[in-house]
């Protein structure tokens, strides 16, 4: 299995806030060691590797994880806690999980 993390650099040159938070969580938990490659999606450069991957897999948010397993279709994960649970098989706190889903999908609170 190969795991690629794609982080976004915004038009003003700064790293996106959520990418920063996810990076910190990965480092704090040691999960960063399970990431094989980190790519940058630079909004100022559509040909940056991360931007090309985002376009290829039709991903519209960052950060995201590309998971490649031999003989299987690649998977994209845009929700950190779901990625940790489903791919890294590590436990997450339900409330963190749910909050992240709502933060990433603010339209859901209107449901």
């Amino acid at each position, binding site marked *: 299995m190969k795991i690629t993390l794609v982080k976004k650099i915004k038009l003003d040159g700064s790293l996106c806030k959520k990418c920063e938070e996810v990076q910190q969580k990965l480092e704090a938990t040691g999960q960063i060691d399970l990431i094989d490659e980190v790519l940058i999606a630079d909004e100022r450069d559509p040909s940056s590797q991360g931007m090309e991957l985002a376009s290829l897999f*039709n991903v519209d948010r960052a950060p995201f994880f590309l998971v490649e397993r031999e003989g299987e279709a690649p998977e*994209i*994960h*845009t*929700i950190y806690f*779901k990625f940790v649970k*489903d791919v890294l098989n590590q436990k997450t706190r*339900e*409330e963190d999980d*749910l*909050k992240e*889903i*709502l*933060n*990433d*999908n*603010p*339209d*859901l*609170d*209107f*449901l």
Partner: protein
Amino acid sequence: MSENHLPTVDLDQKLSEQTPQEILAYALEQFDNIAISFSGAEDVVLIDMAYKIAPKKVQAFSLDTGRLHSETYRYIEKVREHYNITIDVVFPESEAVNNLVREKGLFSFYKDDHKECCSIRKIGPLRRKLLTVDAWITGQRRDQSPGTRAAIPVIQDDKAFARPGASLTKFNPLANWSSDQVWAYIRSNNVPYNELHDRGFVSIGCEPCTRATGPNQHEREGRWWWEEATLKECGLHDVNIKK
């Protein structure tokens, strides 16, 4: 017929030109295990439309946060009886609600924001329900919130709630309809509606977080109004700092 994975981006372009009924017919044809999310408000039009397309396939669910208006509970029951359908009412985990209330009280959303409460009372049960289906249908519309719903597609690959290793398709057949169109449908088809609408409620959610709106107010102003005010205040501070 049930498909595992649809090319949602291509389909969105095609389905966007179709009517909500055509989109619903497509969804119901593609999936056997598909459910309509019914909030107890004007999204009842989806149930009415689906009932007219394939009455035996109508499977609906409602999220009972425990804080809905009594009018909404009565209305959900009315819809169930009117269409003679099953409405699966799903509830939050009691332990999570207990913990929130014990730690922060019953109205923490007025002090913090609504997200913590919504995530426990809505997103948790929603996730549990969606783990049991292959596709779901919502009444989300672009005109409901210029901020958060402006780009809602008609069909999308729902990665947030999909089961591990599986796909979940989300349909928003009303995405391109306006509130006026929804209400024209309700009135011309004699669809039962929540009595709160006759009292000025445009958008209906939980009782403490919903209020009636006045003329020319956007329906979003009837939900979490205290947070909007906070945002405006912060914006002013920002301008002052830049000056």
